[in-house]
C-alpha cells in the first residue's frame, strides 16, 4: 500500500507537535522515522493510526484521501500498529490475544479455539513468525510477545505496519530477528514505518530514513549516510559519538562485593555469589542480557533488597543489609534503572526532586524546617551546571523530557559527596544528545577519582565506558575482561559460553 501524508499539522495549545509534515511510504518499503524523544514521531503515528486527528493536512492511501475517526477505521483500511508498550492480555494464550475482538465462534457464541489456533498457525507459517498459539503470553519472552503483536496486526490484513520504538525492550539477538521479520514482510509487499532513535538500526534495515526534529521533517536520506551524519541531522548540531577517556588511574577499592546472594520478588535466587571490586578512579561496567540478576544486584547494593548472604563494603564500611538512608549517608550515589519509579516523584517540582534524598540536610533544612530559598538556589545552580532544560525549576518533573529527567537524577546524585557512584541503564530511552551528555558526566566523575559502577544492557555503552567489564550471566560473573576484548567474545560470555 502506498501511504502519503500531506501537510499534517497537529497543535497542542501553543505547541506545534507536527508542522506541515509530508511523507510518502511506497509499497514494500521500510521507511524509518528517526528523531529524538519529543520530536513528534509518536504524535504523527497516532494520527496515521487514527488515535488523534490532525488539525490540518490529509492522509492518502493508494492515492485515496481517507479520514479516520478512530483506530478501528485505520485497522479496516489496512493499517496495523505495534505499540512500544504491548497491548496484550498476559493471562490469555497467543491465539486468544490475536483473535481478541474478532473471535471465530461456534454456535451460541462459543469460542472456536481450534479454528483460532489453525488460523494463527497458518499466519505464522505464511510470514515465518514462529510462535506457539497455545502458549500463555505472560510466559513468553519480550521478543516473542512483540511477535504476537505483529501477528495480531497481520491478522487484520495490515498493509502498512507501524512499529513504534520496537527495539527498546529487546535483546541484541531479538533485535536481529525482528529485523529479519521486517525485511521478509517488506519483501511480501507490506509497507513498514519504523520509528526509532537508534542510528545503528535505521542504517541496518531502512530503505529510506526520514529525520524529524521539533515537529518538522528535516531531510529524507538513504541508509548509506554515516551514523555521525544522521546524529547531527537528528540533534541539529554535531554530536560526538565516541567517549574520550584519559588513561585509568585506579586506586583502592571503594565498593567490595563478596559472595553476594540475592533473591528476586518471587523468592528465586537470581544473584548467585557475586564478588566484584570497584576501585576509585575507574569505571566497572556490568554487561549482560536483561534479567541475569543485574537489577537485583544493584537494588541490594542500594539497600532496597535483602542480601541473603555475603557482604557489601562501601568505602571500608560494612553496609550489608543497612537501610537505604544509611547507605546513602555512607556515600553511595545511585541512578536507578527505573528512573520514573525509583528515582523521581514526577508530580513534584524539579527543585524538590533535586533534594529528594538530601532534604533533611543543611542547608536545605534546619531543625526540621525546610529552607525553600536554599532548595531553589540549589536547583537553579544544578540546572545550569547539568544543563537541565526546564521552563522553571518549579515545574513538575513529569513535564520534562526523558533525557532531562535523567539529568535531574544525575545532578542530584553527583551534587553530594560520594564514595561510589552506581548508574543502572543510565541512558535507556534517552536521545543521542542526552546520551552524549550523561556519558561525559560519568567519565568526568571517574577522572575526578570516584569509583563508578555502570550496569547496561547496551553492549556499545559498556564497551565505550568500562575500564573493566564484568559479564553477568544467570546470576554469576562469567568473567571480568578488558574493554579491548571483541564484541563477539563478550557476546559469547553474555550468552553463558565461557572461554575455552
Amino acid at each position, binding site marked *: 500500500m502506498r501511504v502519503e501524508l500531506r501537510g499534517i499539522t497537529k*497543535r*497542542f*495549545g*501553543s*505547541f*506545534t507537535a507536527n*508542522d506541515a509534515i509530508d511523507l510518502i511510504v511506497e509499497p514494500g518499503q521500510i521507511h524509518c522515522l528517526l528523531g529524538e524523544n*519529543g520530536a513528534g514521531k509518536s504524535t504523527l503515528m497516532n494520527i496515521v493510526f487514527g488515535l488523534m486527528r490532525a488539525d490540518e493536512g490529509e492522509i492518502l492511501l493508494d492515492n485515496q484521501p481517507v479520514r479516520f475517526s478512530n483506530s478501528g477505521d485505520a485497522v479496516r483500511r489496512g493499517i496495523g500498529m505495534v505499540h512500544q508498550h504491548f497491548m496484550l492480555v498476559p493471562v490469555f494464550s497467543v491465539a486468544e490475544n490475536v483473535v481478541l475482538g474478532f473471535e471465530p465462534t461456534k454456535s451460541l457464541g462459543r469460542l472456536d479455539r481450534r479454528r483460532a489456533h489453525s488460523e494463527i498457525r497458518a499466519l505464522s507459517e505464511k510470514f515465518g513468525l514462529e510462535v506457539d498459539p497455545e502458549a500463555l503470553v505472560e510466559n513468553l519472552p519480550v521478543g516473542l510477545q512483540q511477535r504476537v503483536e505483529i501477528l495480531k496486526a497481520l491478522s487484520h490484513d495490515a498493509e502498512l505496519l507501524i512499529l513504534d520504538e520496537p527495539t527498546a525492550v529487546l535483546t541484541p539477538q531479538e533485535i536481529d530477528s525482528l529485523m529479519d521479520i521486517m525485511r521478509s514482510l517488506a519483501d511480501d509487499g507490506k509497507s513498514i514505518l519504523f520509528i526509532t532513535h537508534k542510528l545503528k538500526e535505521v542504517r541496518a534495515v531502512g530503505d529510506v530514513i526520514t529525520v524529524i526534529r*521539533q*515537529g*518538522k521533517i528535516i531531510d529524507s536520506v538513504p541508509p548509506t549516510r554515516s551514523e555521525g551524519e544522521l546524529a547531527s541531522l537528528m540533534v541539529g548540531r554535531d554530536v560526538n559519538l565516541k567517549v574520550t577517556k584519559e588513561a585509568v588511574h585506579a586506586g583502592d577499592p571503594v565498593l567490595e562485593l563478596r559472595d553476594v546472594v540475592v533473591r528476586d520478588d518471587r523468592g528465586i535466587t537470581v544473584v548467585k555469589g557475586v564478588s566484584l571490586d570497584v576501585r576509585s578512579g575507574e569505571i566497572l561496567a556490568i554487561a549482560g542480557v536483561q534479567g541475569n540478576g543485574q537489577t537485583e544486584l544493584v537494588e541490594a547494593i*542500594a539497600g*532496597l533488597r535483602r542480601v541473603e548472604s555475603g557482604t557489601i563494603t562501601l568505602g571500608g564500611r560494612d553496609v550489608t543489609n543497612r*537501610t*537505604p*538512608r544509611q547507605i*546513602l*549517608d555512607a556515600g553511595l550515589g*545511585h541512578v*536507578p534503572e*527505573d528512573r520514573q*519509579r*525509583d*528515582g*523521581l*516523584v*514526577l*508530580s*513534584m517540582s524539579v527543585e*524538590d526532586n533535586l533534594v*529528594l*534524598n538530601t*532534604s*533533611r540536610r543543611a542547608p536545605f*533544612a534546619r531543625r*526540621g*524546617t*525546610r529552607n*525553600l530559598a536554599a532548595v531553589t538556589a540549589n536547583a537553579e545552580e544544578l540546572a545550569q551546571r547539568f544543563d537541565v532544560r526546564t521552563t522553571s525549576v518549579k515545574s513538575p518533573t513529569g*513535564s520534562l523530557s526523558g533525557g532531562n529527567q535523567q539529568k535531574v537524577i544525575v545532578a542530584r546524585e553527583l551534587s553530594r559527596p560520594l564514595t561510589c557512584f552506581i548508574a543502572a541503564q543510565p541512558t535507556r530511552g534517552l536521545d543521542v544528545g542526552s546520551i552524549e551528555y550523561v556519558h561525559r558526566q560519568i567519565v568526568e566523575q571517574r577522572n575526578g577519582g570516584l569509583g563508578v559502577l555502570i550496569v547496561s544492557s547496551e553492549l556499545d555503552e559498556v564497551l565505550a565506558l568500562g575500564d573493566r567489564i564484568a559479564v553477568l550471566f544467570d546470576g554469576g560473573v562469567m568473567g571480568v575482561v578488558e574493554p579491548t576484548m571483541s564484541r563477539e567474545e563478550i557476546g559469547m560470555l553474555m550468552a553463558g559460553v565461557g572461554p575455552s
Partner: protein
Amino acid sequence: MTTAEAPRRTWWTRYTSQSPSLLTFFALVLGFLIGAIVIIATTPAVLDAWRHIFHSPTAIFSALKITWDNVSAAYRSLFVGSIGDPRSFVHSFTTGKGWDTTMTPISETLTYATPLVIASVGVGIAFQTGLFNIGANGQAILGGIVGVWAGSMLHMTSVIHLPLTLVAGVLGGIVGGLIPGILKAYAGAHEVIVTLMLNYIIAFFLLYVVLSTALQQPGQSNDISRTIDHSAILQPLFGTSSGLRVSYGIFVAAAVVIFAWWFLNRSTLGFDFRVTGANPFAARASGINPKAVIILVFVISGGLAGLAGEVQMASTNHYIDGGFLIGNAGIGFTAITVALLGRNRPGGIVWGSLLFAALGVGGRTMQAMTGIPLDLATVIQSIVVLFVATPVLVKEIFHLRTQAQGVQLATKGWGQ
C-alpha cells in the same frame, strides 16, 4: 519547540485554563443548579403550575414565576440561615442593636465548622501521604471519650484542666490511629479495612463506657456520660449571655490549620510524607523509612481526629452520648468528604468545612421557612463533591480546555 501564534490572554483564556479552585467553583454552581432541579421536581405547587401551562396564554409566565419564587425562597433561606439576613445586618449597623440575633447564623456555621476543620485536616494529611484514614470517626469518638473522662473525672483549675483535656482528646485519637498504623506497617494489613472495622468496635466501646460505671452520668440509665467540669470547657467567645455558641475552639482549629500548612509545606517530615504519598518507591530509594512514615501519619491523623472529637465535647456538647454516633452524622465521615473537597490542602479544607457547615446549618432554616426538607442541603453537598471528584466532567460541561494530558485526581484509588 515550534510555537504557534500565542493566544491572547483574555478573561476567556484565563477562564478556559484549568485552575483547581475554578473547578471547585463550577462544581458548586452545578450543585446549586441541580439542587434547583430537585426543588422543582419535588415541590407540588411548581409541578402543578407546569402541568397547566397550556391552559391559558399567560400560564407559562405564572409557572416560571412560581418556579423562581420557590427556588429563590429556598436558596434565600439557606443563605439567611447560614450567613444571616441582610436586612438584619442593616438594622444592626444603623441602630447598633440586635447584633446577637444578626450574628447567630454565622456563629452557628463557625461552631459546626470548628471540629470539622480539625478532623478534615487530619484526613487530608493522610490522603497526601497516600493513606486512607477512613477511621477518623472512630478516632474522634475515642478522643471524645478520653477528653470527657479527663474533663469530668479530674478536677483542677481551668488553666491546666482545659489544655489537659485537649491533650487527652489527642491521645485518645492517637490510640485509635496507632492500631491501623502499626498493623499496616508491620503486618501489611490494609488501612481501609482496619480503620473501617475499627469504627464499629469503637462505636460499641462508646456504648459500653456510657452505659457502665466507667463514664455514665450517675443516676442515669440512658447512654449519657458525665458532664465536663466548667473548668474544662471551651467558653463561648462572646460570653454565655450573648447566646452565640461560637467558642474559643475556633482558635484551636486555626492553630491546627496553620500547623498543618507549615507541616506539609515547610517541614522536612511533611516533605517526606508528600514524597511517600506521591511515589512510595522513590521515597524508599531516597532513604525515607516507609514504616515510620505510615505510623507517624496515623499518629498525626488520628490525633487530629481525636482533638476534633474533644473540641466538639468541650465547646458545644459538654458530655458524650450514644447519639454521638449518629446524631452528628459522624464528623469523621464528613471530614473525608471535606478533605476531598479541599483537595487535601489546609486552606482548601477551611473553605470546604465552611461550605459544608453553612449548608448543614442553613438547611435547617430552609426546612423551617420553606418546608423544603433538610435533605436538599445534603443533595447539594453530595453533588458538589461528585463534581469535584470528576474534574473531567466539569471541564466537559463548561468547555474548559485541557492543556496537559491526563487527569489530576484528588485521590488515587485504594492504596497499593
